[in-house]
């Protein structure tokens, strides 16, 4: 997609070797990141993250569902990423599907520990989503949309998911049908009837007045290190990504634990370089988490002032 002349390539490689990239950043420096929360009022949580010229929107919707039979004590999380053609003409029609599915899989692996993971939920605590074991749980639908693309989409999407100030209905009361009359009095409630089976039909009352703030502080951030030439860089632009030999995405949570790892790109990596990259990514993630925290605090303060 990105056409670079031989001179531009040389300039970029030389800059990276001297720790001064084309846009003036150092190798491990991120672009300025800005965050807006609550951009999609219809969703339970949403955020827009702008990282340089990369713009992504993440939205989380919570719906009541039934846990999978094999994992009755866990809720479900579905991650789906879409690349909008507004990000570039290469995404028109079905052009974005390949990248979309690559990003979806990458995020699933980094945040959920993969589809097959028995203890899926390295980043998101799935057992906290269960309301009644084996019967009702919250299904989280995480949708990401890439609006404008200038590299490092995975990190931006993970950051957007992390900062989705996630609010959902908490005041659920689970009762057998004969108790409904009692629990229906008082504050106005939306009641949802979930048919579990013929005998044990459950009535769930969801209050629309009280909310639970889902704790997203445990959700990891992703730091992608892109190897260009002999060095690796953080937060690559699309020009830099066009020259990459391989990229490693490490998801790290607040406690400095690695929650997931993906490697992309054709070239192989020396294991020692890989270990080095992981420790560098861990260090970079601390800064990123600190930046996100302060941005969230700023966004919340701005919102409080507005209301």
């Amino acid at each position: 997609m990105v056409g670079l002349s031989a001179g531009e390539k040389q300039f970029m490689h030389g800059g990276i070797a001297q720790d001064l990239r084309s846009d003036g950043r150092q190798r491990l420096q991120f672009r300025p990141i800005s965050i807006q929360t609550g951009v999609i009022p219809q969703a339970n949580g949403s955020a827009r993250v702008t990282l340089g010229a990369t713009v992504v929107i993440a939205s989380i919707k919570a719906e009541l569902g039934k846990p999978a039979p094999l994992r009755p004590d866990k809720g479900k999380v579905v991650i789906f990423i879409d690349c909008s053609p507004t990000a570039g003409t290469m995404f028109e029609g079905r052009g974005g599907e390949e990248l979309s599915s690559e990003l979806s899989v990458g995020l699933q692996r980094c945040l959920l520990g993969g589809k097959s993971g028995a203890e899926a939920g390295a980043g998101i605590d799935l057992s906290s989503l269960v309301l009644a074991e084996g019967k009702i749980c919250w299904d989280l639908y995480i949708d990401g949309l890439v609006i404008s693309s200038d590299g490092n989409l995975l990190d931006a999407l993970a950051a957007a998911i992390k900062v989705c100030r996630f609010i959902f209905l908490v005041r659920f009361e689970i009762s057998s049908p004969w108790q409904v009359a009692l629990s229906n009095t008082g504050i106005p409630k939306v009641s949802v009837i979930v048919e579990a089976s013929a005998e044990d039909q459950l009535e769930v009352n969801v209050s629309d007045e009280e909310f639970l703030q889902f704790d997203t502080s445990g959700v990891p951030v992703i730091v992608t290190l892109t190897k260009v030439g002999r060095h690796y860089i953080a937060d690559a632009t699309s020009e830099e990504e066009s020259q990459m030999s391989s990229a490693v995405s490490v998801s790290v949570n607040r406690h400095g634990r690695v929650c997931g790892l993906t490697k992309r790109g054709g070239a192989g990596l020396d294991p020692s370089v890989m270990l080095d990259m992981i420790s560098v990514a861990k260090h970079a993630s601390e800064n990123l988490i600190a930046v996100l925290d302060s941005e969230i605090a700023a966004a919340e303060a701005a919102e409080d002032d507005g209301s």
Partner: protein
Amino acid sequence: MEYVSSLTGFRFDGRRPNEMRQIRGEIGVLAKADGSALFEMGNTKVIAAVFGPREVQNKSQQIDNQALVRCEYSMANFSTGDRARKPKGDRNIISYSADHGSKYINTFDASFSGKNLKQIDIFLQVLQADGGTRSACINAATLALADAGIPMRDIVTSCSAGYLCSTPLLDLNYVEDSAGGPDVTVGLLVKMDKMTLLQVIALMPTFFFFCCCICFVLLFV
């Protein structure tokens, strides 16, 4: 259901029957596109991106003495109240978006000199759908085309109107839109005072139709 209060004459969301929702437009929201715009009509939010004029990618599509205008319309998964479970590849959605695309192309019959055989791509992304997405898309695309510096005969604006509770209503929101009443979307060239798009759903009295048209003439920009 009472969509217009018989007591006060106000609608659900507190508007008068001939009142539009708050509109907001912003241009240059995307760094990578040649022209882009964000357009909001109440809770309906649309981003439009314009790429071009550029060389025609597929030479067989080139038409003599005309610019090739292409348009793609997509809705974000989170744009509607219920999360759409269908993936993007769903056939209905594709044909729907193709259908929409051609409508927008007809709306934007941009004027070019004969030598300018270029391609213009318009991409529309609905971020939030709360009724009137069609008109919001057209308005957003107009702004994006203007932002891209593409010469146009005139500015195309659009708005929808409906007819509920024997009252003509301007700029329907989702609740009013799904009430099943008649629904008109009109695209207008404001200065030339010409209509480029007219879409009517369901039956309606002629008199109401004229009411709608008058509403549109009073439009903005």
